[in-house]
């Protein structure tokens, strides 16, 4: 965990309850998950009840309350990617890394997510690893892409 970075984010919004969602987004981007202790600090610093912090942290799908793997694999299952074979691609990725969407493997190497459209329909179907897009994927190409992430 990058504690100093998290402190910095919290400090920027100290005493501003309206910034709750924003703070959680920034911590999620930085740390990839929201540890309970951090959420307590957010509640205290922004002066919002802890229950409120938990409500926001659990309602939005992007927030994770469990640790993520070193690499976040996202298979787009938006409609255009779906028409272009995303379901088969997702099957292949699940087979390759041995986990289902929402899971992280035992070695914390990969976390797998599916999700709605990221707006790059023209190069679908695609997988996005740590924010890098890999377009026009086939199950064979996916294997090639994923083996580079250790």
């Amino acid at each position, binding site marked *: 965990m990058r504690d100093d970075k998290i402190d910095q984010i919290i400090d920027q919004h100290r005493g501003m309850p309206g910034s709750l*969602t924003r703070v959680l*987004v920034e911590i999620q*981007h930085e740390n990839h998950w929201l540890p309970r202790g951090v959420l307590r600090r957010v509640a205290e610093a922004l002066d919002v009840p802890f229950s409120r912090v938990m409500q926001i942290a659990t309602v939005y799908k992007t927030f994770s309350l469990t640790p993520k793997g070193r690499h976040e694999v996202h298979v787009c299952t938006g409609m*255009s990617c779906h028409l272009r074979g995303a379901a088969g691609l997702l099957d292949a990725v699940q087979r390759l890394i041995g986990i289902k969407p929402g899971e992280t493997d035992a070695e914390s190497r990969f976390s797998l997510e599916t999700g709605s*459209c990221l707006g790059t*329909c023209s190069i679908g179907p695609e997988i996005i690893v740590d924010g890098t897009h890999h377009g026009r994927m086939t199950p064979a190409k996916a294997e090639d892409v994923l083996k580079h992430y250790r």
Partner: protein
Amino acid sequence: MPRLHSAAELEELRAGILSGRDPEMPCIAVCAGAGCHGLDSGRVVSAFEEEVGKLSLGAKVTIRATGCHGFCEKGPNVVISPGAICYFEVKPEDVPDIVAHTVKGEVLDRLVYTDPDTGQKAVHLGEVPFYKHQTRLLIGDNPRIDPMRIEDYLALGGYAALSKALFEMSPDQVIDEVKKANLRGRGGGGFPAGLKWETAKNAPGADKYVIVNGHEGEPGAFMDRALFTGNPHLVLEGLIIGAYAIGAHQGFIYTRHDSPQLIAHIERALAQAEEYGFLGENILGSGFNFRVELHFDVGIFVSGESSALMQSIEGNPPEPRSKYIRTSVSGIWDRPSNLNNVETWANVPQIISRGAEWYTSIGTERSKGTKLISLSGHIMNSGVAEVPMGTPLRTIVYDIGGGVPGGKAPRAVHLGGPMGGSIPERLIDTPLDFDELAALGAPIGAGGLLVMDDETDMVEVARYLLEFLTNESCGKCVPCREGMRQMLKILTNITKGKGKSDDIGRLEDLSDVTGVACLCALGKTAPDPLRSMLRYFRDEFEAQIASGTEAR
């Protein structure tokens, strides 16, 4: 840069920017929009910068990383001005060749567009079939703008409409102009923007808000991101004009958290607008004050619905409320809140600069102006297109889109995303018009157009869309939460070969109930795709039930 204090200072600044620019100097615009970025256009930009640095050509060529050009399918795209010479599928290895040809004023033949059927080449943007049939009033400036530089927007006449509104028009005149232009909301509803503005303006209360809905959660829709990322000041200028007309001093931009480039460009645009005096206190010396805050959606489809979005801005979970009272009367913190979509706001500056009369000369009787379309699915040329309202879908699918890969026939054209509808190929001559398409059961929605080829299983598409919406239902109201779950169950059974003879009747009953009883538009329109498919492709559902076998 000191703040501008008057319209004259703005024009002086603009003249200064233009006098420092040589229109004859070649400018290489590399598309860094979402699609091209995904195809590694970042490396192409670096390669250009390196090459120009290596040959010390900095004074002879400009390199510009821009927003989406439109033709995502053939990315990374490069456009060279003057002349708008288009190169497609550019790789870093091609860069030295492009630079060498550009400084000599020559065209690099091997990277220009070649028609896949005739082999004919097209050098200039206006000759490429994908662009030729478009009217690019909103997105056409993207290749001419570095979204991180307000100077580029000012050089193209940016903020002149704001200056005109502030100094030559009263707020009522601005609203009248937008009403006369018959600008209809581009986010899905097609509600007249001018009327909404008027409602917000006349609603009781001193504090009012204006909001940009940049959520764009509709799968297969990516034009708002293309426009907002590529030309953020255009949207911002529209918003400021709207705020002036309505009498709002606080604005909100609500957009996606998962697009770092979009966020960076909006934040930069807000900071620059503030620095130059287009935001903040006493804008351009007019006495009008206006500030804007940026808020994020965090991955929930329903937070694009207006009342849910406003809940989210307040810091609450994004659950819609029933709208006995419109949000334009009682929205954020129960105050009048006028929400429009990105593309709607982007239309405002040109309506103010060029007038409602000009604007209404484009389009059909009841749908004016142009519309951005995200073309995707089974199509040769996917990307972002902009066409006048009234353009036949055939032109969009065939002339711009290049038809279905492999010369196949399209089975259906789907519009409006997961709450839209599919129409069969035989209706492809229908014009792009809010009302005509809605009557056919395939509303324009936000502008996502998906083409499905003749091998597409429509029952499976209906199931897929309901699955998406079932997962995205916030669960607040029962008809949506339970109704969709049951519909999905029935459809899943049908695709698995376990359909029963009365399933279609039951699906129709459930559609009718959810259609009227749900709280918000997500639930009310959730059965629409299924309805359209039962309307046009009923035989496929019947055949699938009768066959009792698993779908392909």
